[in-house]
């Protein structure tokens, strides 16, 4: 229990730091920027109470907001991601598999499942984030293209991180 608390606090801090110090400075082709930090929401254990999940997601988003001077933007996007996560899990996996293991990891659930799951959440998060940030549906195709291309990059980074730093 205590070990879990320490482990997830560490994942929280590392994802926020990586995001604000490194990934926030990335901008490819003037439209693609990765939002790696939702890795934290993706990795939380299956049995996290839904209310706690919402609180953690909100706190995560707010931490990013403080660094980027965008109060509410990341918080609202993370909150939505945290809210839909249990539904997404039910949708893409069987009940038995969710009860037999503790956390959504590559080694628990398989490579393909993890990519599908990460893509689902990243797309929801990025779609909401980019449209809240733009605060308009004007130029819809451009924003949609940004959402899709940035999501691809974020998913690649999140999956890679599973083999490099967050192995355990």
């Amino acid at each position, binding site marked *: 229990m205590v070990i879990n608390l320490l482990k997830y606090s560490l994942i929280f801090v590392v994802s926020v730091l990586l995001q604000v*110090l490194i990934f*926030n*400075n*990335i*901008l490819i082709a*003037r439209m693609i*920027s990765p939002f790696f930090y939702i890795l934290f929401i993706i990795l939380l254990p299956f049995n996290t109470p*839904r*209310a706690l999940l*919402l*609180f953690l997601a*909100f706190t995560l*988003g*707010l931490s990013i*907001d*403080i*660094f*980027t*001077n*965008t*109060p*509410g*933007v990341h*918080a*609202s996007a993370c*909150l*939505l991601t945290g*809210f839909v996560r249990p539904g997404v899990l039910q949708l893409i996996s069987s009940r038995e598999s969710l009860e037999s293991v503790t956390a959504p990891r590559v080694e628990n659930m398989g490579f393909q499942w993890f990519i599908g799951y990460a893509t689902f959440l990243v797309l929801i998060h990025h779609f909401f984030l980019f449209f*809240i*940030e*733009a*605060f308009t549906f004007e*130029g819809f195709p*451009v924003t949609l293209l940004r959402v899709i291309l940035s999501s691809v990059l974020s998913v690649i980074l999140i999956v890679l991180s599973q083999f490099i730093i967050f192995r355990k």
Partner: protein
Amino acid sequence: MKNLFRLIYRYHVVLLFVLLETLSLSMVVTYNNYQRSAFFDSSNFFTGTLFEKFSSFFQIFEFKQVNIKMAEENAVLRAALQEHLLKTSPGTYHASDSIYLPRIAKDSSIRAVYRFTTARVINNSINQQHNFITLNKGRRDGVKPNMGVIANGQVVGLVINVSENFSTVISMLNSRWKISAKIKRNDYFGSLSWDGKDYRRVQLNEIPYHVPVQNGDTIVTTGYSSSFPEGLTIGTISDFSIGSGSNFYKIEVMLAADFKNLVIVGLVENKQLNEIKQLESINGN
């Protein structure tokens, strides 16, 4: 009553979601650049120190670039000094300190009104709709809100929040900021803003049709905002068109300052700003 609690308990997740989402969306909507709480600002102690530590680590790699830029600026200053010495009558040396920042302070009246200092950029972004810059100088170094920020004599942004040791700057690449600007060749002015699409281009609006406009025309500050002296370079016109059903041009301006590569910036303080603001506020009422 018991049923009510049961209902709340049953839907507590949805209720919590709606509550927090309303809270965060209202933060997005009511958020105002000029009256923000210091907590949500990267000039606060914690984030400021973190950014400073991190950027000073990478500073080693920036030295070469900074050197080249300073050499370039030196060359420009030296050329201006020569020009100035030629203009003044031969034999006399009353060039005094107009050699200091000559591209900005051409005459003594501007020198008397504006004060210049420098600061280092410790955080900067260009990939959002609302970009901000954090500087390593704050109240203790005499930085105040509404000071203009320039790089190589080109407009970069405006100081909006100041803490003891740091300050945040609203970047020109922020769709919430507008600044008045004019075409240098004929002095027609309009308002300059960013549409959030391309970090190298901003848009000049409110220039009427009858004004002759050319690609390559230089866009400079007007001095109306009082934060910048008149005539600072902003960029050049890269494209213009006539919007349908409107009486104004749609002008694309290629920025002169390279926002992706800001290291050292200059801060401009208008010593008469308070007096101007006070006088103008009388008209407002």
